[in-house]
């Protein structure tokens, strides 16, 4: 009887469900296999960037003599730096503007709430849900008429407005988390609103502002609907530049890979660093 009951209980008890070491080893193999399969295209792209064009289209192999040829050619032949500069200008320009406009708004919502605050916030978020393609025609025509097509300024305006709701939202959540007593104390000491914001609020919420800014940079950097439709050559950022490799004439996989690797590397690293804040911004706080 005793043996019978121990037998049925054994597989169910925590320690008996095979050995913990075996389970851990199994999970390690499974977890890593899945991660490597998902990451493989990126890994392969990075690798291909260091191959010659003929090695790039040869049978897949991990053994080859690496070369920086493609990196050089991407710069010399198509002027990679020019597009990268456009990306930097557009991503940082729009982020700076968005922060500038959003900080007062988020401050008001967090510290001077009225009956309408919640409604305003939700309305702002809802503008984010307007599909870009729905307003493609008017934006294109307006930009054509005022000469903003294929300009950095044009893209900066679009990206600022595109990211503004998320930026306001994230700043609002960071400001709201700040203890009110500190601001109160500052006010007691006779600080004006501007001083309060400049010397208390901004320094204290700097990490939050920084991660909000990073999210905005990432979103602008990777945006590809407006960049493909509103730019042709002068203001084309990297998303549009990479698209120029889609032409069917000839295969330039090594150059495509080299250019792509340079285009995604900075954002990949920023993305790794800001995962948590990403979730906060992308779900509008609906997932904690």
């Amino acid at each position, binding site marked *: 009887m005793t043996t019978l009951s121990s037998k049925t209980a054994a597989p169910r008890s925590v320690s008996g469900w095979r050995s913990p070491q075996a389970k851990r080893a199994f999970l390690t193999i499974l977890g*890593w296999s*899945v991660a490597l399969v998902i*990451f493989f295209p990126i890994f*392969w792209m990075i690798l291909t960037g260091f191959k010659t064009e003929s090695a790039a289209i040869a049978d897949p192999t991990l053994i080859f003599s690496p070369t920086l040829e493609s990196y050089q050619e991407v710069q010399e032949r198509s002027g990679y730096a020019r597009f990268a500069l456009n990306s930097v200008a557009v991503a940082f320009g729009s982020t700076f503007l968005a922060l500038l406009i959003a900080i007062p708004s988020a401050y008001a919502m967090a510290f001077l709430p009225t009956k309408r*605050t919640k409604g305003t916030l939700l309305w702002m978020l809802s503008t984010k849900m307007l599909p870009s393609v729905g307003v493609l025609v008017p934006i294109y025509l307006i930009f054509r008429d005022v000469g903003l097509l294929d300009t950095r300024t044009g893209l900066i305006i679009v990206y600022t407005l595109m990211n503004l709701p998320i930026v306001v939202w994230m700043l609002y959540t960071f400001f709201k988390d700040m203890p009110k007593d500190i601001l109160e104390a500052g006010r007691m000491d006779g600080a004006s609103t501007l001083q309060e914001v400049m010397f208390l609020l901004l320094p204290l919420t700097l990490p939050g502002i920084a991660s909000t800014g990073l999210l905005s940079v990432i979103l602008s950097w990777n945006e590809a609907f407006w960049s493909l439709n509103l730019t042709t050559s002068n203001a084309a950022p990297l998303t549009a530049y990479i698209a120029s490799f889609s032409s069917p004439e000839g295969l330039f996989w090594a150059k*495509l*890979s080299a250019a792509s690797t340079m285009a995604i590397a900075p954002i990949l690293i920023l993305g790794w660093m800001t995962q948590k804040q990403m979730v906060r911004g992308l779900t509008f706080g609906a997932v904690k």
Partner: protein
Amino acid sequence: MTKTRASGRTVGGLRTLALQAPAVTLLLLWMIVPLGMTLWFSFQRYNLLMPGMTGFAGLENYEYLLTDPALWAAMGNTLLLVGWVLAITVVGGTLLAVLFQQEFAGRGIARVLAISPFFVMPTVSALVWKNMMMHPSNGVLAWLAESIGLPAVDWFSSLPLTSIVIIVAWQWLPFALLILLTAMQSLDEDQVEAARMDGAGPIAIFFFITLPHLKRAISVVIMIEMIFLLTIFAEIFVTTSGGPGLATTNLAYLIYIRALLDFDVGTASAGGVIAIILANIVAIFLVRMVAKNLED
């Protein structure tokens, strides 16, 4: 709490208004002007190639669009694309979130690798997949298939929409994983432990504890993905250009064709209105959910 603030409310209200004015005004303009124009154009005869033909069109553009087989093909493709990508990313993302929640060696790095595709710009992911992965003779998938004795698939000619689904799902699976993994962290470990003590197996724990806990996060993932997936554009633009035929033309791409290739502003705008209505149906639910969350 409201009483003590009541005295400062009117002053505060004015300041609030002034501080919010720039953001609110800009967003209002950004929303109302193009939206109004889209709506206006959708009732106009307006083709950039035929400058003489103008005037009120009534419902002509809508009629033309709704009787155009291309629209229904595009709607079908949009639904298939959204549906399949959602199915893959939500089911896959949930399973991966459970996997990456377990303790194992190097879990942190494995997680970072798995969420990476989300940070890759769409034109890069589409072209890397199209060329280096799915190329019928030189791609990695063709090589894999041949090395185990299977015929290589010519992905973009024989399975064009499936190819797009794979690329888009690869980009959005990490998004689902990232959100669901965050949601997992608030799972009550004691509850899981208690269930385990009571003899619940891993499958029972998954269905009766983990899944109910993730319900809300899963619906957020579904809604956010729907809003973005409804208007997938760059991936189609750089790989198939909507073809072969209309096989990979979705609603966004059809509007692009009508607007910037055919210069038919009227019809494109009518298409835009349809896209906005579709997105708004989803958005209403999402906003409601966010609003609920603001209260707690």
